[in-house]
């Protein structure tokens, strides 16, 4: 009876935006009389940091300090359409909408500034809340002064709108799955390595270490990217070794009734993390960003399963990799069925064994 260390890897991909696209996000922006910026977006913040990310994009695109930006996603009267916060779309799809709105309102600011400074808007830029003449940065006017002029001199409300809609990819041939165009806004890639310790007496699997690399395109906010990667990893660990909604399946009894009666990861389950952010900018994301929110819990279970095999020599092909499954597999020491060039694992779970109404030919 002993504890065994094992190591395994996985590499994955994940699309950004709703599958087949066709999922709009829209935003509008207005400028207060002192130059502060109000963003109205319909993107819910589910803990992913959508408010922060979209505010950073707006601040960057207009050229004003981040703390000038107020973000309002509070209701459907003031905020335009956003399909929602899912499908890893909040940074990429909704981020593109606020980026367009920000560029739009920036142009309005430059037009008013051009009138005030008697210079073409094309020769102006905005840096840190000040409108500067390109190449002659000493000639400048604060965005706050532009907003005052717009409100009380020119009688103009400076606003911007933006909408992002990636074309719906129709399934043109349901026999083959052929589509009319790209069914995703972008694809992100990641790889994961897991080191585990397996106790061959109790069947307990502990994930000790996760090395994870994600191509995020551009990290709009590296701290939030790390939060997604490391928080997502713990969800992947729960899926991999702990959680089960139906612990007495096929009975629907004894499902959790309190958080204490459902096995999900807690702080003691947290492995050591090595998180590698790769920035390979996407062609059409805001500032090159991609969306990695969801894929952050996809890579761990496969890497953990391989690490368990490396540790104790058995393949577990069900989740969660519970002590019971590990002990049963150690006892069975099952070998795949080998016939000619066929190597068949898990025959006993196949529809060919279990069902009469559907079959499947290797």
């Amino acid at each position, binding site marked *: 009876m002993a504890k065994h260390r094992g190591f395994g890897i996985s*590499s994955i991909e994940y699309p950004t935006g709703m599958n087949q696209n066709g999922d709009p996000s829209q935003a509008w922006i207005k400028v207060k009389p002192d130059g502060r910026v109000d963003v109205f977006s319909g993107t819910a913040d589910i803990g992913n940091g959508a408010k922060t990310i979209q505010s950073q994009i707006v601040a960057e695109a207009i050229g004003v300090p981040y703390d000038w930006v107020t973000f309002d*996603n509070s209701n459907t009267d003031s905020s335009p359409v956003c399909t929602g*916060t899912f499908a890893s779309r909040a940074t990429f799809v909704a981020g593109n909408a606020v980026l367009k709105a920000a560029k739009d309102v920036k142009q309005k600011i430059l037009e008013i500034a051009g009138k005030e400074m008697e210079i073409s808007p094309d020769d102006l830029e905005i840096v840190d809340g000040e409108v500067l003449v390109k190449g002659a940065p000493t000639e400048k006017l604060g965005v706050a002064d532009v907003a005052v002029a717009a409100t009380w001199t020119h009688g103009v409300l400076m606003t911007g709108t933006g909408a992002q809609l990636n074309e719906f990819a129709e399934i043109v041939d349901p026999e083959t799955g052929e589509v009319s165009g790209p069914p995703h806004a972008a694809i992100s890639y990641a790889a994961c390595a897991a080191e585990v310790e397996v106790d061959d007496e109790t069947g307990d699997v502990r994930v000790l270490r996760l090395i994870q690399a994600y191509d995020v395109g551009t990290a709009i906010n590296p701290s939030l990217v790390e939060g997604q990667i490391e928080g997502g990893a713990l969800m992947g660990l729960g*899926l991999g070794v702990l959680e089960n909604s139906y612990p007495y399946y096929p009975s629907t009894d004894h499902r959790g009734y309190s958080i204490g009666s459902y096995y999900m990861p807690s702080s003691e389950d947290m492995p050591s993390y090595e998180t590698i952010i790769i920035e390979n900018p996407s062609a059409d994301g805001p500032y090159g960003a991609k969306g990695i929110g969801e894929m952050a*819990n996809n*890579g761990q279970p496969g890497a953990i399963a391989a690490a368990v095999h490396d540790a104790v020599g058995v*393949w577990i092909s069900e989740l969660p990799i519970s002590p019971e499954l590990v002990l049963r597999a150690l006892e069975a020491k099952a070998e795949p069925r080998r016939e000619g060039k066929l*190597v068949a*694992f898990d025959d006993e779970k196949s529809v060919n064994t279990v069902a009469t109404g*559907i079959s499947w030919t290797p």
Partner: protein
Amino acid sequence: MKAVGARLPRYDGVGHVTGQTQYVDDVRVPGMLWAKALRSPVDHAAITRFDTTKAEAMHGVHAVVTWRDVPLLEFGHLSALGIPADEPLLAKDEVRYKGQPIALVAADDLATAQAAVEAIEIEYENRPTLFDVRKAFDADAPKIHSWGNWYPHFEGEMDRRQIRKGNIDEAFDNADKIISGVYRPAAIEHVPIETQIALAVPEPDGRITIYSCTQALYFSLGVVAAHLEVPMNKIKIVGGTVGGGFGGKVDTAADTLAAIAAMKAARPVKWRWTREEEFLASSTRAPWHMEIIDAVTNDGWILGRKMLTLHDSGAYARFSPYGLTKHSFHHTGAYTIPNLHFDGYVVFTNRTPTTAMRGFGVTSISFAVETHMNRVADEMGFDPYEFRLKNANRINDTSPNRIRYTDPSSVDVIHAIADAAGEELAPAYAAATRDPREGDMLPEHLVGQLKTEGH
């Protein structure tokens, strides 16, 4: 200072960690009633008797909402995409999962609402249950829906999602080894700190304001307006700050019934699910049944893949047809496999309906494909890094849908973890890039699948 790329603190982080952020449950309005649901205690049954008279007559009870009070009883989450509705907002004649809502009571306080729920007279006639997706096709399988046990409305009125690419028979003939495996991840819970909740407030101007925990404000607006058969300007959804959402709050769970109860009672109504309801009746991540068979060569190429997926939708479709389609589009993982034969079914069971959860449709694939890749590597004596690098997506490779990969970074991320793990790769693999295939990385079987332009 540049805003993009800066490690700025979370916009609303201080509010969250100091308890000052206002979530739906923090909103209290004068005259507010509390709601409780009558939920099915059984997995599958006909409702043979249903009488709310006693509950309605109780002191302190202001509304008992049943299916008769819902203007449009069935509205599918994917109706806009042409996917027919199959789930009543409140059960009518039958229940298909334990926890399915049947009635909602709005009363002065929670205890009165609960007492009224218990005063509803209802009788069930149990029906046989189905929990194993593999057995859903058997001749003697219990019937979950009148039209059958699996979803029949894919494009072309097909009853499954198919992918076909290349010449699968030739790939299997040419393989040195054919390796199969079966992968079954379990259903898991979302467990948001904030359980499902809604507060619906009738306004003086005839509108309804709904304080919602939705992940998708306009989605809820559309769903509520459709069930109520009112234009969107009669409803205002207030939200945007969610106490944890991992897909389970994309479905509109509490908003519509809270609104109907508020209209019937002409009072504000809050419906807050208990933790037990959240576990029993809110959607889970789907359990999946996946069978993969790969045609592999001794020199480390995957020539073809056959795959069968049975996606356990639980009792109703919700987003499952969407999830299965996404699953099918990604069933090769991060690798380029030119010959494919995929069949997937959305199968109904008496589980709580499953729905979107972080990685919807693809989390399952990632586990199945990656475990299978590691098994194949182990069986064939391949290095798991090199086997992956060889088959990894490159620029100009094509997806299962014949879409050109323009920006794959699988090689980069594999190199990154190999470096961090101190893994020494053979020079040919250490030098691999994501650039279009050529030389040893462009074997004959991959030539035909390349695209050099377009999508």
